[in-house]
C-alpha cells in the first residue's frame, strides 16, 4: 500500500478511519428493507411472464382473489401510466397488461397475509397469451421481425437508438496514418448480483405514501412514484433503507417499488415485496452485451492520428438508461488517449431479454476493453512496447478532448509508473504459460448533467448545530461505498470534530435536501462539495461568535463554540449545494461524458494460462488509481479492491446468457461469482493528483478501477499463450479454441468475426474545441 503525502493541513481527511456505520453493520443492526416488518404487513408476490415475447389476450384474477388471505390483486389496468428512468424512454409499466417483452416481465401482483399465500394466488391467475417470435440477438434485432417489433418506437426494425458523431477531420487523420488497423471485439453482458435481493416496503397513512426501498436513487424513485401513482410529490416520501449492494443494479425505479405503494394504498396496510434471487436476475439493468469495431490510424512511432469506433449494444426489452449507455460506449475513449480526429457510431437494439442498464462503469468497460486490446495489437504489429505506445498517446492534465470533454487533474503517468514498477513488468521472468498484461482507464466523477434537464443543484447539504450537537442532512444514499462516512468526514474536518461525532440524516425525501443518488460515481465529488460549502459556512458562524468574545476558535471546545453561536445568531443552520460547471460541448449528445473531473487507473495482471486446459489462474493484480485525494484511504482501497474483483469476475466467468428465450441460469450457483478461492492478492496504489474542483481535491473511486482489469487480463493471456481472446469472459473453451486455430495457422484469436451492417445516420460533424481556448458554456441535450 502506498499513499501520497497529503498536500494541505488536514486532520481527519486522509485518515483510514472506520466507517461511521461500521458497528451497525458488523453487529447485524443495520436495518435493510427486508428487515422491516411494520405491524399488519402484507406480503406481495409478482406474477411474471413465462414468454419472452407475447401479447396478453386476457388476465383472469378471479380465482386468485377467492383464496383466503388474499387482500388485493392488481394488474396493469391498475397502473397503466408508463415510466422510465430517462425522460426520452418512458416505456415501462409496473405491470404489463398488453404485451410482455421478456421472461420475467411483471403482469400481476398480489398482496396477502403471508408470502406463500401470495405465491399460490399468483399461480391461480390465468393469463392468455398470443405468443410472438422472440428477438434474442443483435443480428436478429437488425432485421425485420417475424411477428412484430418489441417496442413501438425507435427503428428501423428493433433498433432503439442510433448515434453518429464526428469530431475533427477523421478521413484526413487516417490519410496521415502510416498504419491502420481494424479489430472486432465482444463484451458479454453480466449482472450486478448484489448480495441483497431488492426489497421495498410501503405504507399509506394520512393520505401519504411512504416507501422504504433498497435503492440507489431515492429521488428518481420519488419522481416515478409521483407520475405513476398520480400523487403530488408532497404526498410521497421515499427513504433509502440500509443498502445491501447496488453496483448500478438499483438505479432505476422498479416495478416492485411502485406495486407495493399501490397495494398499500388499496389495502391501507403496509405491504412488502422482496424479490427472489431469480427475480433479481430479471430486474437486471446490468452490463450491456456490446459488439465493437474499431479502426485506428497511427504513425510509425505509434501516435494516434484518427480513430473510428462503432458499437452495437444488446439492450434488452426496455429503454432503461440505454440512450445514455449508448453514448457512453463512445464518450470516454478520448479521455485517456489524445485522439486528434474521432468518429463514433453507436447503436442500441431491443431484444426480448431483461433490460440492460448501468453496471459499475456504465457503458465504458466494454469500449475500454476493445480500445486497450486494440492498441495492444497495434503495438505488437509495430514492434513497440504496448506500455510505451499507450504512454505516447496519454492525455495531459488541463486539456480538452476532441469531443469537448474537459480534463483537469490526470494521474495517468503516475498510475502507470506505479504498477509497472511494482509488478516488475519489464523485468519479469519468462516461463511457459505465464503472462503479464497492462491496461489503463478513466471514469467520471459524477455525470455533469442530471438525468432530467434542469438548472438546479445536483446535491444539497444542510447542517444544523444546537447545544453542541451537529447533524448533517443530505439526500445522498450510502450503498455501502461509504458516502455517509465521506459526508461526516468533510463536516468533521471543517468543524474540528471526529467523523463519528457528526450525526447524519440521509436519503429521505421528506427530511433531507436533494441528492440525485449513488450513480456515476458522483457522491464524493458532488455531495462532498455541498457538504464542504455548508460546513464552511457553519464554521464561519462559530468562528464569528467565538471571536466576538475575544477568543480563538481553536481554543474553545466545539460545545462552547456552538453555545456561543446559538446564543448570538439563534437557530444555527447552514446549507451548501453543488451544481456542476456547464462544460458540455456544443453538439446534440454532448450531455453524456462531461464530468467535473475524471479518475484514472492503471493495472497489471499476472497470470498462468494452461495451454492444455485453457484454464487461467490469476497470480496477482497491481492497480493504481488516481483518486485526486483520498478522503478516507481505507474506503478508497475498498472501492478499488471491489472494482478489481468485479472486473475479474466479468473477465473470467460472469455472464448473463440466454437459451431458448430464457435466462439460462438465474441462480447464484450457475451465475459464477468468484469466491474467496478465486480472488488473487491485489496490490493497490492510491495516486493523489488533488483535483482543483473536488472536495479537498477528491475524485471518484468506485467504478474506474474495474475497467482496466478485463483488457489487462486478455493482454496477459496473449503474453502467456500467444492467442488473443477478443471476447469476455475468457472461458477455458475459448482459450482452447484460439490455440487450436493458432496451431492450424488460422488467426490466433477467439472473438467475433464481423461487425454487422448497421444503418447509422450520417455523422453530426463537430468542430473540435480550440486546443487551449476557454471553455464555452453550453446547454445540454441528448
Amino acid at each position: 500500500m502506498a499513499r501520497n503525502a497529503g498536500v494541505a493541513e488536514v486532520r481527519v481527511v486522509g485518515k483510514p478511519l472506520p466507517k461511521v456505520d461500521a458497528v451497525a453493520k458488523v453487529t447485524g443492526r443495520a436495518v435493510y428493507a427486508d428487515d422491516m416488518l411494520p405491524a399488519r404487513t402484507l406480503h406481495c408476490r409478482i406474477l411474471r411472464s413465462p414468454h419472452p415475447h407475447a401479447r396478453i389476450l386476457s388476465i383472469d384474477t378471479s380465482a386468485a382473489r377467492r383464496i383466503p388471505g388474499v387482500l388485493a390483486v392488481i394488474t396493469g389496468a391498475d397502473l397503466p401510466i408508463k415510466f422510465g428512468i430517462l425522460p426520452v424512454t418512458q416505456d415501462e409499466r409496473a405491470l404489463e397488461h398488453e404485451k410482455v417483452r421478456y421472461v420475467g416481465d411483471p403482469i400481476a401482483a398480489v398482496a396477502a397475509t403471508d408470502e406463500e399465500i401470495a405465491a399460490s394466488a399468483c399461480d391461480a391467475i390465468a393469463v392468455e397469451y398470443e405468443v410472438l417470435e422472440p428477438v434474442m440477438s443483435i443480428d436478429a434485432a437488425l432485421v425485420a421481425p417475424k411477428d412484430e417489433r418489441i417496442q413501438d418506437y425507435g427503428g428501423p426494425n428493433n433498433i432503439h437508438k442510433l448515434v453518429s458523431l464526428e469530431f475533427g477531420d477523421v478521413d484526413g487523420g487516417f490519410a496521415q496514418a502510416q498504419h491502420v488497423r481494424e479489430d472486432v471485439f465482444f463484451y458479454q453482458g453480466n449482472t450486478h448480483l448484489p448480495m441483497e435481493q431488492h426489497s421495498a416496503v410501503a405504507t399509506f397513512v394520512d393520505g401519504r405514501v411512504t416507501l422504504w426501498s433498497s435503492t440507489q436513487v431515492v429521488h428518481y424513485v420519488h419522481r416515478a412514484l409521483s407520475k405513476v401513482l398520480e400523487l403530488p410529490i408532497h404526498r410521497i416520501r421515499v427513504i433509502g433503507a440500509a443498502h445491501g449492494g447496488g453496483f448500478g443494479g438499483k438505479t432505476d425505479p422498479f416495478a416492485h417499488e411502485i406495486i407495493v405503494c399501490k397495494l398499500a394504498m388499496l389495502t391501507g396496510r403496509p405491504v412488502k415485496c422482496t424479490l427472489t434471487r431469480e427475480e433479481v436476475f430479471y430486474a437486471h439493468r446490468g452490463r450491456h452485451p456490446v459488439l465493437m469495431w474499431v479502426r485506428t490510424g497511427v504513425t510509425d512511432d505509434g501516435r494516434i492520428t484518427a480513430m473510428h469506433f462503432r458499437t452495437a449494444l444488446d439492450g434488452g426489452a426496455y429503454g432503461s438508461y440505454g440512450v445514455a449507455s449508448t453514448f457512453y460506449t463512445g464518450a470516454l475513449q478520448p479521455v485517456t488517449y489524445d485522439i486528434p480526429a474521432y468518429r463514433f457510431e453507436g447503436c442500441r437494439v431491443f431484444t426480448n431479454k431483461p433490460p440492460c442498464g448501468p453496471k459499475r462503469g456504465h457503458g465504458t468497460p466494454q469500449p475500454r476493453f476493445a480500445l486497450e486490446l486494440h492498441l495492444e495489437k497495434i503495438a505488437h504489429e509495430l514492434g513497440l512496447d504496448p506500455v510505451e505506445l499507450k504512454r505516447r498517446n496519454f492525455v495531459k492534465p488541463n486539456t480538452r478532448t476532441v469531443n469537448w470533454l474537459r480534463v483537469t487533474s490526470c494521474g495517468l503517468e503516475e498510475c502507470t509508473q506505479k504498477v509497472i514498477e511494482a509488478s516488475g513488468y519489464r523485468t519479469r521472468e519468462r516461463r511457459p504459460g505465464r503472462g503479464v498484461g497492462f491496461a489503463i482507464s478513466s471514469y467520471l466523477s459524477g455525470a455533469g448533467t442530471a438525468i432530467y434537464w434542469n438548472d438546479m443543484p445536483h446535491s444539497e447539504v444542510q447542517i444544523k448545530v444546537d447545544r453542541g450537537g451537529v447533524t448533517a442532512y443530505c439526500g445522498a444514499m450510502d450503498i455501502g461505498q461509504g458516502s455517509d462516512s465521506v459526508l461526516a468526514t468533510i463536516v468533521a474536518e471543517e468543524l474540528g470534530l471526529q467523523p463519528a461525532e457528526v450525526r447524519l440524516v440521509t436519503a429521505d425525501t421528506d427530511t433531507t435536501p436533494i441528492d440525485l443518488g449513488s450513480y456515476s460515481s458522483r457522491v464524493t465529488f458532488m455531495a462532498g462539495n455541498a457538504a464542504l460549502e455548508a460546513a464552511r459556512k457553519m464554521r464561519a458562524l462559530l468562528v464569528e461568535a467565538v471571536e466576538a468574545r475575544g477568543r480563538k476558535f481553536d481554543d474553545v471546545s466545539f460545545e462552547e463554540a456552538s453555545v456561543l453561536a446559538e446564543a448570538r445568531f439563534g437557530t444555527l443552520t447552514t446549507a451548501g449545494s453543488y451544481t456542476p460547471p456547464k462544460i458540455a460541448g456544443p453538439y446534440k449528445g454532448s450531455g453524456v461524458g462531461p464530468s467535473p473531473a475524471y479518475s484514472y487507473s492503471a493495472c497489471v495482471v499476472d497470470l498462468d494460462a494452461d495451454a492444455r486446459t485453457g484454464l487461467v489462474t490469476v497470480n496477482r493484480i497491481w492497480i493504481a488509481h488516481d483518486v485526486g485525494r483520498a478522503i478516507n484511504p481505507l474506503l478508497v482501497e475498498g472501492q478499488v479492491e471491489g472494482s478489481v474483483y468485479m472486473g475479474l469476475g466479468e473477465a473470467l466467468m460472469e455472464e448473463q446468457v440466454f437459451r431458448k428465450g430464457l435466462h439460462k441460469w438465474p441462480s447464484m450457483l450457475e451465475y459464477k461469482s468468484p469466491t474467496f478461492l478465486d480472488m488473487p492478492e491485489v496490490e493497490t496504489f492510491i495516486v493523489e493528483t488533488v483535483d482543483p474542483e473536488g472536495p479537498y481535491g477528491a475524485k471518484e473511486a468506485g467504478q474506474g478501477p474495474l475497467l482496466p482489469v478485463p483488457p489487462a487480463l486478455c493482454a496477459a493471456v496473449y503474453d502467456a499463450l500467444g492467442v488473443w481472446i477478443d471476447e469476455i469472459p475468457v472461458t477455458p473453451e475459448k482459450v482452447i479454441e484460439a490455440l487450436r486455430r493458432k496451431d492450424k495457422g488460422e488467426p490466433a484469436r477467439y472473438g467475433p468475426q464481423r461487425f454487422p451492417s448497421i444503418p447509422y445516420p450520417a455523422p453530426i460533424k463537430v468542430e473540435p474545441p480550440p486546443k487551449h481556448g476557454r471553455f464555452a458554456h453550453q446547454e445540454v441535450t441528448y
Partner: protein
Amino acid sequence: MAADLGPRAMFVAGGTDLYPKLKRRQFEVDALIGLDFLPRTLRNGSDVCVIGAGLTLSAASGDVDITERFPGYARAAGLVSSPPLRNAGTIGGNLCVDTRCNYYDMTYEWRKAAGFCLKKDGDICLVAPSSPRCWAVSSSDTAPVAIALDGSVTVAGPDGERELPVSALYRDDGIEYMAKQPAEVVTELRLRAVPGTRSAYVKLRRRGSIDFPIAGAAAVARLDGGVVTSCRIVLSAVASHPLEVPAAGEFLKGRRLEPEAIQEAAELAAKPAKPLDNADLSHFWRKRMVRVVVERALQDLSDQGGGLGG
C-alpha cells in the same frame, strides 16, 4: 414408515440437496422422514473402516484416519460444495445426491417457462429431445471414490438390512438413478483397507468452492513394488451414474505409474465419457477435460509414496 407413507414421503439427512429442490418444487412431498437416527460413528477396523451414513462430510474429510487410509475419499468429501454445506451434508446423502441438469435444477417458474422436462412434470428430455430417457448427471463427488475403493453400503428397509457394493447402488438413468428401493436407506459405508492401496480424486469445477463437479476422476490402485496390481478408475459428472472405466484400470495392471502409461490410461478412460449440454461450460470442453482429470488423479497416485504400504 417410508413404505407406509408411499411416494409422497422422502428421507432427509443434511437437507442440503433436498431442501433447495423442495423450494424449487422439483420434489413435492407430504412428509419428510428425518434421518437423524442414522449413525454418525466411525469405526476404524484393521481391514475395514465403517462410516455411519449420518457422519457429516466435514467430519469425514477432516478425520485423520480416513485422510491417511483413504486420501482420495477424504479429498472428495472435502471438495463437496462449500464449508457450511459440508457441516450439514452427510456422507450417506452425498452417495444418494440427486442427478443434476440445468434444465431441471431450476425454479418451478423457470421450468414452467422453459417447458417441463422428463425428470419432473414433463414428457421430453430438454437436453436430448429425441431420446426416450433422462440424461441428468450424477454429481456425487464421493460415490466414484467409494466405488473405486470397492466400498460397500448397508441399506436398511422394510425387509431388513442388506449389504451391497456401492457400484450396485446406481443405475444409468437420470430419473431412476438409484438401484435401491425408495423405502430403503443407506445406513453405513464400508471402505476396505487393503495394504498397498492408494486413492485419489480430482474434481473440475469453475470456482474453487460451492460448485458441483463438471468432471471428476477417482482413481484407486494397489501397487506391489511400484507395479500396479489392480486399479479402478471411476468418473463423476459425465453420465447419469458414476461411470467406471474398466479398460483404463485393466490397462494399468502390471505397469508402473509412469507418464506414458498414465497418458494412455487416461485416453482410454476418457472414451466412454459422454457429457451433454446440461451443466456448466461446454460439453466439448468437459469431454476434453476428462482425460486431464484422470491423468491428474493417476499422477496423484504416482506421487503418493506413503499410504498403506504403497
